[in-house]
């Protein structure tokens, strides 16, 4: 079935009364100071009211290996921005105004979380499920799960879980610190990790090791420091940096290989 244009299909399902109601709310909120309790109530109403638009737009990308929930969540960021920026006096339909902002957020998500190599969709989806299972089981068990526990939770065989986790290693998530080195603001997760070179002092090969460590990108260097000089587990590092444990493992593997190569060339 060909997809109807988004604005028409969403507005089309809306009754004229509902559209008018949204419009009235936008008019009301325009004159309300943000501190007014009523401002928050109306804002929340408007956001909730337009959630179907986000769901609709997210569904366009349903076959790309990201979970629908994740995409809706990302799209919601766009919706909230749109609600806050919308100027009803300009006479534009809200859905027309909001659609590019929501799509922008969803596309940015894909740009930041691109699959590095082609992975069959089945594996991509499985990978998303397994990552969720890892999160929930880690919370429940208070430790990282085993493959058997993951398999049971995801209703897969051990081999299928291992296969999907291998696929996960081909997945790159560059969003975490895309502008590495250039950020001065202090809102990157890395700013929470203090640089600590003390452990390195005791380390005899530091003369040849230091430049190799310094050659790594900031994030990779931090991960090496946390794992090997601060003895944090991969899961702990993942949580601290807001990335998946599989991603930490992947970055560690690449960094170690790079350091090994450098050592050999010395």
């Amino acid at each position, binding site marked *: 079935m060909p997809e109807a244009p988004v604005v028409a299909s969403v507005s089309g399902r809306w009754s004229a009364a509902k559209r008018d109601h949204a419009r009235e709310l936008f008019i009301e909120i325009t004159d309300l100071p943000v501190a007014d309790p009523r401002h928050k109530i109306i804002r929340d109403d408007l956001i909730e009211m337009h959630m179907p638009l986000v769901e609709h737009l997210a569904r366009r990308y349903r076959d790309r290996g990201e979970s629908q929930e994740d995409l809706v969540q990302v799209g919601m960021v766009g919706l909230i921005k749109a609600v806050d920026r919308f100027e009803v006096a300009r006479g534009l339909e809200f859905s027309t105004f909001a659609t590019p902002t929501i799509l922008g957020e969803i596309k940015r998500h894909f740009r930041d979380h691109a699959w590095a190599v082609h992975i069959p969709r089945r594996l991509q989806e499985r990978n998303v499920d397994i990552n969720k299972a*890892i999160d929930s089981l880690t919370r429940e*068990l*208070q*430790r*990282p*799960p*085993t*493959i*058997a526990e*993951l398999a049971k939770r995801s209703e897969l065989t*051990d081999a299928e*879980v*291992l296969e999907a*986790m291998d696929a996960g290693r081909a997945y790159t998530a560059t969003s975490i610190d895309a502008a590495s080195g250039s950020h001065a603001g202090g809102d990157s997760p890395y700013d929470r990790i203090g640089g600590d070179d003390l452990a390195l002092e005791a*380390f*005899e*090969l530091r003369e040849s*090791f230091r430049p190799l460590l310094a050659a790594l990108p900031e994030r990779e260097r931090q991960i090496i420091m946390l*794992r*090997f000089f601060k*003895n944090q*587990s*991969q*899961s702990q590092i993942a949580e601290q940096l807001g990335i998946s*444990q*599989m991603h*930490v*493992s992947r970055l*560690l*593997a690449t960094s*170690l*290989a790079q*350091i*090994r190569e450098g*050592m*050999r060339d010395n």
Partner: protein
Amino acid sequence: MNPNNVGPLPQPSDVTLSFRAITANVALARTMAAALAARTHLTIDQIEDVRLAIDEAVSQLINDCDEQTHIHCDFTETAGTLLIRVGANTRTGLPPATDTFSWLVLAALVDEVTAGADNGIVQLELRIRRPASVTV
């Protein structure tokens, strides 16, 4: 570290893998180690660490081997502990130094690492224990 660690295994190994000492073969050892770590019911953190550890151990040996040499990997599970032995007939016949980053990495990734050399054969032993909180 016991420098004279090369000796018979406590029991016959469950799996033995042997391959020519070239970098392209490291992935074989890695995949095998991960699969056996999963079978030992190690946690996913440990499995990932085992992958990195075998990378490091095998790469170390390959650096000190001619391409025609074979690297031998023995995998044995005993009571929730996965023992991995990696050995080869190396050029120097010397066990790896322990004041290197590489050794620090190995020590951080597994519960126990030892190295030994005997008559030109260098061997690394890695032990990874299943946490008591995992019920099998």
